[in-house]
């Protein structure tokens, strides 16, 4: 089932930010969300993982959701491996989370391997490049064993080649069967890697299309509407 969002509404201090958003991502599918700043993209994702409580609407998630952030949010002083291990905290007891067990470390190594960074496991996260850090954050999401990955502008702070590498990694995780929902700011990347594209405008889904049928006009109007 992946993730199914229906009728999501949210206001902040009387100002409506989400005006009934419907969105589904099936397992194996990569959906990109486009939209101007302030159109409510982050709020959708934050409501979906429970960082914010929607006023109304439902979110159904199959197998747990992990979140990847634009600001990456690793602990820079810890090793890449420890950061990945911390994705498993939700299924560990407190005494198991002081020092990670061999099993968890092995699983985290596999996750790092899936993002192509097994050789950097012992490096401090803060020492890695932005693109590498974002891949470590994705490995942390994998170590959470979530079936759904929500990524809020995961590549907005990265240079073009690192951005492409990260988006292509997200696409390959969808190939492996995860449901991936990513906010992107580059329509070209969305069109190249995503299966479907959702345009969000003022808290509403303005259009929803397959990547192949993406209408540049419609995409441009998302950003013009905000000006």
């Amino acid at each position: 089932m992946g993730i199914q969002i229906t009728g999501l509404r949210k206001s902040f201090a009387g100002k409506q930010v989400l005006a009934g958003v419907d969105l589904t991502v099936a397992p194996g599918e990569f959906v990109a969300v486009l939209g101007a700043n302030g159109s409510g993209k982050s709020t959708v994702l934050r409501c979906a993982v429970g960082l914010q409580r929607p006023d109304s609407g439902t979110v159904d998630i199959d197998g747990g959701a992990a979140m990847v952030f634009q600001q990456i949010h690793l602990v820079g002083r810890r090793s890449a491996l420890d950061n990945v291990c911390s994705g498993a905290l939700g299924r560990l007891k407190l005494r198991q989370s002081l020092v990670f067990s061999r099993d968890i470390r092995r699983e985290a190594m596999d996750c790092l391997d899936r993002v192509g960074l097994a050789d950097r496991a012992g490096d401090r996260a803060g020492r890695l490049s932005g693109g590498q850090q974002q891949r470590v954050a994705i490995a942390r999401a994998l170590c959470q064993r979530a079936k759904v990955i929500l990524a809020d502008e995961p590549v907005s702070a990265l240079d073009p080649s690192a951005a492409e590498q990260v988006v292509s990694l997200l696409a390959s995780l969808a190939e492996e069967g995860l449901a991936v929902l990513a906010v992107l700011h580059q329509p070209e990347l969305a069109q190249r890697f995503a299966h479907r594209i959702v345009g969000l405008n003022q808290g509403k889904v303005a259009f929803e299309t397959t990547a192949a049928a993406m209408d540049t006009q419609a995409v441009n109007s998302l950003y013009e509407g905000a000006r």
Partner: protein
Amino acid sequence: MNPPTRKAPSPVAFIVIAVLVGVHVLAWQGTGFSPGALVEGWRGMADFLDQAFPPDLGVLGDSLDAAVITLYIGLLGTTFSIPFALLLGVLASRVTTPNSWTYQIARSILSVLRSVPDVVFALIFVTAVGLGPFAGVLALVFHNTGVMGKLWAEAMEETDPGPREALRVAGASGAQTAVNAVLPAVLPQMVGLLLYRFDVNVRSSLVLGLVGAGGIGFLINQSIKLFRFDQMVTHIIVVVIVVVLVDQFSAYVRRKLAT
């Protein structure tokens, strides 16, 4: 262009100034502040200096031994307070506390420990465990827990909320987040504050010695009671050297940590 005209001082400003002047007059009287007494007493000062110099270096050995005890008091007073300051600091920091009850209680304990001066703790513990360095260590552990716990809690609150949020999404509890996101990030600041407190505690342990809690402060007290000001000066010279060395050491390590 003309600058804006200055506003005339408000009557409130006059009242505030009048009150401040009044309080200073009362304080002057209340403390028996008297420059005249200082001038008239110069003879006493001269006598004192005459007896104090040259310093009696015969007590240098005792003095150094006691200085080491003073350092030990400062050291144990700092390190033994680590577990308590850590526990209370985590509970008293808004970003790691499990609930608002615990937060309020932990904060209250810290503020009580902080507001009772270490000298008062020392006087209490001297009556409990007798004169000597052990009372000094206990006094520092109590007071330093209050100060360091508060400083650590504040340092934790200043950490980046991003990693905490990421772990919360991953299903981590508050305590797990504290251990895996907050403490690793804040460790260098905590070590810096620990060294700063060691520095302060070594200086405090001198004062604790004056009230009977061992170390070189105790020797200074003894030499004053015996009117051996020449010995006292030797102790004070040793004190100054110890304080400067500890200060330099702690500043050096903190500089290293910052880079």
